[in-house]
C-alpha cells in the first residue's frame, strides 16, 4: 500500500489509530456509572465465555465421531436451579446498583445551580440564571452541581451528554430535570437522542466545561444586560401579576416571597411542595392548584407566555425573598380596579375572546 500512495497510507494509519473506543469521563457520576458498566461487561464476558466454552467442549467431546451413541439425560434440578439462581442473583445486584445510580442522576442536590434548557425543533436553548442565552451549546463550570430544568416547546427531545453519562428527555408541557457535576474542563458532545423530525441529526451542540474562573469570565462576556429573574420581573409587571400577588392584607392572590420550596396547603386538600414544575403549572393551569384561602380567580396564561417567559417568571418567583420588589412593581403598573369579583367574569370574557 505504501508504494501506491503514501498520502492514502498516512491517512489510513491516522484514521485507523485515532478513533475512540470509550467516551471521556467528565462528570462526577461518570466513573460510578462506568464501574457498573464494566461490572456488567465483566459478567457478560464471563457468561458468554462459559456458554461458548461449554458448547465448544461438548461439540468436541460428543461429536458423532467420538460419541456415536447419545446418552439420554433427563435433566438435573440441581443444575437448573444453579443457572436460575446465579443469574437472578447477579441481575438483582445490577438492579440495585443501577437503581442507586438512577436515583442519584435524577435527584438534584438542593444547592445546585439551575440552568433552564428549552428544546424545540431543532435547537437547544439554554438560559443561565444571569440572563445569558446560548443556542446549541452549554457552558458550565467544574466543581459545581448543575441542575438542568428541561422543557420542550413541541415534540419529545432528549438532552444527552455522553461524556457526563447523563441524558434526559425534554417533554412538551412539563419540566424534567437532571443534574451533573463536571470535573474535567474541555469540550464535549451534546446530542438530541430522541428522534424529533427532519433535522434530528442536526440538533447537536457542544458542552464546554470551564474552570470556575473561566466560567465567570464567560458569564461576564456574554451577559445580555438583564438576569433571568429581572426579565421575569419585567414580565411580572407587564402582566399585572402584582395586582393580586401584592402581599397586601386584602390581596386576592397569595404572597409570593419565599414561596419557592415551601409546602403549600391546597384548596382541594393536601399540600404541595412549590418547585419549578408547580410554579409553571400554577401559571398555566391556576385553577387546579389554588392555595388554601384563595378563590380560583386567576386567569390562565396558557398560550400567552412563551416557555422562555414562563421560565423567566419562575426564576423571578424563585428568587423573590421579600415583598419589597413587588411593591416596587406595583408603583410602575397601572392598578386594575380593585373591586372584588371583577376578576371572575373577566377571566370568562378572556376565554370567550379566545374562542
Amino acid at each position, binding site marked *: 500500500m505504501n508504494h501506491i500512495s503514501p498520502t492514502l497510507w498516512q491517512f489510513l494509519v491516522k484514521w*485507523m489509530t485515532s*478513533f475512540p473506543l470509550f*467516551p471521556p469521563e467528565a462528570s462526577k457520576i461518570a466513573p460510578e*456509572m462506568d464501574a457498573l458498566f464494566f461490572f*456488567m461487561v465483566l*459478567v*457478560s464476558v464471563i*457468561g*458468554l465465555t462459559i*456458554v461458548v466454552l*461449554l*458448547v465448544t467442549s*461438548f*461439540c468436541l467431546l*460428543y*461429536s*458423532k*465421531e467420538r460419541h456415536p451413541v447419545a446418552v439420554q*439425560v433427563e*435433566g*438435573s434440578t440441581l*443444575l*437448573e436451579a444453579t*443457572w*436460575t439462581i446465579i*443469574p*437472578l442473583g447477579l*441481575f*438483582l445486584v445490577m*438492579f440495585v446498583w*443501577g*437503581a442507586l*445510580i*438512577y436515583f442519584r*442522576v*435524577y*435527584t438534584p442536590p438542593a444547592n445546585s445551580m439551575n440552568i433552564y434548557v428549552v428544546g424545540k425543533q431543532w435547537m437547544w436553548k439554554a438560559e443561565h440564571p444571569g440572563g445569558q442565552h446560548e443556542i446549541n451549546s452549554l457552558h458550565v463550570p467544574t466543581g459545581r452541581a448543575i441542575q438542568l430544568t428541561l422543557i420542550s416547546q*413541541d415534540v*419529545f427531545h*432528549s438532552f*444527552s451528554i*455522553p*461524556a457526563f*453519562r*447523563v*441524558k*434526559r*428527555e425534554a417533554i*412538551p*408541557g*412539563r419540566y*424534567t430535570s437532571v443534574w451533573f457535576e463536571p470535573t474535567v474542563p474541555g469540550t464535549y458532545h451534546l*446530542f438530541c*437522542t430522541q428522534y424529533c*423530525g*427532519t*433535522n*434530528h*441529526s442536526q440538533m*447537536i451542540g457542544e458542552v464546554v466545561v470551564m474552570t470556575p474562573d473561566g466560567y465567570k469570565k464567560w458569564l461576564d462576556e456574554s451577559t445580555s444586560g438583564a438576569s433571568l429573574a429581572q426579565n421575569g420581573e419585567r414580565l411580572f409587571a407587564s402582566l399585572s401579576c402584582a395586582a393580586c400577588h401584592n402581599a397586601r392584607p386584602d390581596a386576592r392572590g397569595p404572597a409570593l416571597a419565599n414561596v419557592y420550596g415551601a409546602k403549600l396547603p391546597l384548596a382541594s386538600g393536601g399540600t404541595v411542595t412549590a418547585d419549578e414544575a408547580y410554579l409553571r403549572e400554577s401559571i398555566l393551569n391556576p385553577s387546579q392548584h389554588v392555595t388554601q384561602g384563595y378563590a380560583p380567580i386567576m386567569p390562565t396564561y396558557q398560550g400567552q407566555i412563551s416557555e422562555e417567559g414562563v421560565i423567566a417568571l419562575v426564576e423571578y418567583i424563585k428568587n423573590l425573598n421579600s415583598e419589597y420588589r413587588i411593591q416596587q412593581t406595583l408603583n410602575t403598573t397601572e392598578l386594575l380596579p380593585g373591586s372584588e369579583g371583577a376578576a371572575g367574569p373577566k377571566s370568562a370574557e378572556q376565554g370567550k375572546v379566545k374562542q
Partner: protein
Amino acid sequence: MSATIVSLPDQSTARIPKVNFITKENGLLSWLLTGDHKRIAILYLISLSFFFFIGGALAGLIRLELLTPQADLMATDTYNKVFTMHGVIMIFFFLVPSVPATLGNFLIPLMIGAKDLALPKINLLSWYLYIAGGLLAIYTMATGGVDTGWTFTTPLSTHYVNTNVLTTGLAVFIAGFSSIFTGLNFLVTIHKMRCPGMTWFKLPLFVWAHYAASILMVLGTPVVAIAIVLVALERTIGIGVFDPTKGGDPILFQHLFWFYSHPAVYIMILPGMGVISETISTFSRKRVFGYTAVAFSSVAIAVFGFFVWAHHMFIMGISNYAVLVFSLLTMLVAVPSAIKIFNWTFTLYKGSITFETPMLYTFGFMGLFTIGGLTGVFLGTSGTDIHLTETYFIVAHFHFVMVGGMLMAFLAGIHFWWPKMTGRMYPEKISQLAAVITFIGFNFTFFPQFILGTLGMPRRYASYPPEFQVLNVFSTAGATILGVGYLLPVLYLTWSLKYGAIAGNNPWQATGLEWQTQSPPLTENFTSTPIMDHEAYDYDWLDKQKEKEVTTSVG
C-alpha cells in the same frame, strides 16, 4: 465431515410422493383460495421473503448513508423515511409473522397430529390481511413515505409531520389483526386439536414456544391497535387524548404503545427459541435437557413480558418509583432466557453431535442471542440505561436479539424443515458456507455498534461526528457480507426445488410427528389420525421404529 445423521433414501429409486399438498390441486386460484395450512405457510414464506428483501434493501441504504459522517447520499428527511420504513417493514411485516406464520403454520398441525389448524378460513384471512397491510406499507413508501420512526411517537406523529402517518398506521393496524388471528388460531388449535395421546407434556417445545407467543399476540396487539386509532383520530379531527396543548399526556401513548411493543419482541423471539429447541435436540440425538423447565420458561417469558413495558421509558419522565418496579421485573424476565440458553447447552452434553446447516445456525443463534440478552440487562438496569438508551447500543442490542437471534433461528428452521416442506434437500456444503458467512457478517455489522453506542452516538442520525466514522465503516462493510449471507440461501434453496436430492420422510432422523409422514405431506397431513404413544424427543422409540421397519421390509 463424514459423521452425519442425514439418511436419504436411495436416490435411484426414490420419488417425491405423487400425491401431496403441492400437487393435490393446480392453478393459482387453488393457492389463493386454499384452506390448507401448509399452502398458506408457503404463501407466507414467499411474501415474507419479499418484504424481508425490501426491508433489507432499506437497511443497505441506511448503512451506505452512514459510511460517511455527512448526510451526503440522501437528504436527512429521506434518511428518516428510509429508517422508518426499514423498521415498520422489518418488525410488522417480517419479524412478527416470520417463524409463526411460516414454520408455525406449516408445522403446528403436523406436530400435534391434526389435519389442519382449527380455523382454516381465518388462517387464509390472516394472510390476506397481512398482504393488504404490506401492500399498503409499500404504497405509503412509494407515495412519499413516512418519517415518524416505527414508534410513531406523539406529538411528533400527530402534529409535527405531514407525511403518510395515517396510511402507515392503517397498514400496521391491519397487520396487527393478521397477527391476532394467527395467534388465536394457534391457541385454539393447540388446545383443541391435539391427537389422541398428545398430552401437554408430550408437545414439542416448538409448540410450547408458539403457544406462549400466541398469548402475547392475542392479548398485546389490540392495545397498540387502539393507540394507533387514537393517533389517527388526533391527526384527523384533532381529539385531545395525547396532545399536551389540550391537556393530554403524550407519555400515555408510549404506555399503550409499549404495552404491545415490548411483548412484541417476545412474539418475535419465542418462536425462534422453539426452533432452536427442535434443532438442538435432533442434531445431538438427545431429549432437550430439562424439557419442563424450557417449556415453562416460554410461558414465564410470556407472562412476565406483560409487566416490563415501561423499561422503554426510563428517561422519559415516568415516575422514579415506577422505574424501580419495571426495572426489577425486567431483571426477572431475563432469567427464563438464561435458563433456556443453559438448557440448550446441556442438551449437547453426552449427545452425539453432528454439524449440519441447521445446527450451525443454531450455534450462531446461541452465541448471538447470549450477547443480545446480556446487553439487554445493561438497558434494563435503570442506571446504565440513562447513558446507553437511544444510542447505537440499543440498536446493536435489538439487532443481536432480532437478527442474530430470530433471523438465525428462522434460517435454522427453514433449513431444518425445508426437506419436509418441499421433499428435497439443498446442497449441504454451500449452505454451511452461507451459515458461516452470515455469522461473520453479522458480527462485523453489529458489534461495532455496541462501541458506537457506548461512545454516545445517537440512533436515527443521518450525520454524525467524524470520529465515529471508522466504526461505522466496519459496520457497513459487515453489512455487505451479511447481505451475501442472506442472498445465498435464496439461490440454492430455489435451485434445490428442482435439482435437490430426494429427502424422504425423515432425513434428519428426528422424532417429531411431522417427520413420521411423507415429505411433502398430504393435504390432510396423515393417512389416519396418529396416536402419540411416546414422549417428545424419544430417540429410543425412533430406533425401535426403524428396527421394526427393517424387519417388516425384510420379511
